[in-house]
């Protein structure tokens, strides 16, 4: 097959843009699974809910999805805090998170999907913004704005979260929970409260990630499942609990997926993430930036 330079370059750029967006989708999992050790497989479900909220508000009031996402942060934060409370009382406290906690999140994912299908049907939904159908061409490279805007915003979100985790007292407390709960308790901090805050933050990111998602592609309730593999693949690939690792992992996956789609056809793309995940688990389970 003849491969031209601009095809290659465009695939690469598309992959990087996609990777930036994947980072936003994964960052919540990096906090909940990577730092807190909560296997929240319902995470993509929350993201799809975020997408639908962006869709409803956009369709009703014409508000930009990203603004909707920012306005939705407190609501998702509260939702996350509530979810953690239920999870903690029902499973973590009883030491049953391994089997029943997983089943709980699986059930949540399933319920959100079915409820969305019941309410909205299986039609694809999309949003209207001034920049969705615009494309900027720089040299040989085409930059579709529907990819660029979410990618940039997602990098901003990632940077903000990284600053929060490393520079603020609360952020450092969250990192400390991951390392030694007992020590935290000895210093008169309540690890449960800190974990609740951290989990709520991880769910709050779904409000924005959902908004990005619906800008990038039309959304229907069951696409959340495709993202389970992606987010965990990125999270494991990058190294659990490391946000820079998440970004690198996301970019890598974005590039690999973009090349697969360009050269083999998009129908193979879903398998890429999972193949990468299985490979990482088999070869280097600690991930690229792992401890």
């Amino acid at each position, binding site marked *: 097959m003849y491969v031209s330079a601009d095809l290659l370059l465009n695939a690469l750029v598309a992959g990087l843009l996609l990777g930036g967006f994947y980072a936003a989708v994964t960052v919540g999992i990096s906090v909940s*699974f990577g730092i807190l050790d909560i*296997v929240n*497989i319902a995470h993509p479900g929350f993201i799809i809910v975020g997408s639908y909220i962006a869709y409803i508000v956009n369709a009703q009031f014409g508000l930009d999805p990203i603004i909707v996402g920012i306005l939705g942060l407190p609501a998702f934060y509260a939702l996350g805090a509530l979810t953690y409370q*239920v999870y903690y009382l*029902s*499973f973590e406290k*009883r030491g*049953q998170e*391994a*089997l*029943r*906690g*997983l*089943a*709980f999140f*699986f*059930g*949540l994912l*399933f*319920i959100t*999907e*079915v*409820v969305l*299908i*019941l309410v909205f049907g299986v039609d694809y939904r999309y949003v209207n913004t001034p920049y969705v159908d615009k494309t900027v061409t720089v040299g040989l490279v085409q930059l579709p704005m529907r990819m660029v805007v979410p990618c940039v915003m997602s990098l901003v979100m990632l940077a903000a979260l990284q600053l929060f985790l490393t520079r603020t007292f609360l952020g450092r407390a969250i990192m400390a929970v991951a390392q030694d709960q007992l020590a935290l308790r000895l210093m008169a901090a309540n690890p449960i409260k800190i974990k609740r805050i951290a989990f709520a933050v991880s769910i709050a990111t779904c409000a924005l990630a959902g908004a990005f998602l619906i800008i990038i592609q039309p959304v229907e309730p*069951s696409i959340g*499942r*495709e993202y*389970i*593999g992606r987010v*965990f*693949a990125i999270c*494991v690939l990058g190294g659990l609990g490391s946000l820079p690792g998440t970004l690198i992992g996301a970019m890598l996956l974005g590039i690999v997926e973009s090349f697969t789609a360009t050269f083999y056809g998009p*129908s*193979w793309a*879903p*398998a890429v*993430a*999972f*193949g990468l*995940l*299985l490979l990482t*688990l*088999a070869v280097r*389970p600690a991930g690229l930036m792992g401890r």
Partner: protein
Amino acid sequence: MLVFLLAHAIGNDYLFYAGYIVVQYIVLATAWNILGGYCGYVNFGSAAFFALGAYTSVFFHKTYPLPIPALLVIAAGVSGLVGLGTGYLTLRLRGAFFAIATLALAVVLQTLVVNWNYVGGSRGAYVIRPSDIEILGVKLDYIQYLFLIIILLAAIAVTIARAIERSKLGYGFATIRDDELAAEASGVPTLKLKLIATTLSGALMGMAGAPFPYYIGYLEPASAFGLPYAVNSIAMPLIGGTTSWVGPLIGSILLGTLQQVATVTISSAVNLLLVGVLLVAFVIIAPNGLVGLMQPHLRRMGWTWRRPSSKSKASASASAASSPSTEST
């Protein structure tokens, strides 16, 4: 057998179909429970193993049609090997990784099948079944033959689960579930046991899938890998109770029947919602499932599940009465 005769006697085609699906879930739920309930490792990929068995049938149907019993053995081999492989890659790590890998497995396999035109690709494949078959001189409608096979499979699955529970293997599994580190430290070969459980569980799920394409006549990836299989084979044991073979059996009969009724009377989307809500409610409120809820009452009445001498009592107890397994054990 009872279910079969009942369905046959009524002669209602839909009832016959529904019965098959419910019995099929007995196999899936019991198979899931061997790994999930006994060892405590969650498999989200039941649909993958099931579809693997189903597509093994489709593949051989196209290349060289084999009788169903041969297909069962091959499907068990294929699914068991895939189970072993996945387990080997991920079971040395924390439990969560295995769960995620099984989710991954389902999508990888589905993508493979979608892109593999020989078995129908995303369009699906038609499997024409013979109209009837003669066994031991008795001429049987092919559908009835398949029904008998799935009932036999359910009986085998439940018998295996029951046998494991009372064996050394079962106690080994239980130590993994309760405290893997302690088990490892006291010399239990945990990795080996986990691999046995994964292989066995995968093989049984594959066997459940093998007759399915013949039964349904048309198989496409989206339905073969459908989320309902994955959710149900988790929900049924967890709702029934995971610690004994009775749990998945009760869970699959109750939940399976409930779903068939709900699909007809309400809608298929609502019935899936029902399963999700029940699953979440049960893991929060009744962690030991229906069996756990009933146990105190049963004990008061003098029944126990686990006493080895109480075989007849256990099978006589209320909820297992209508199941095929009671006749076989």
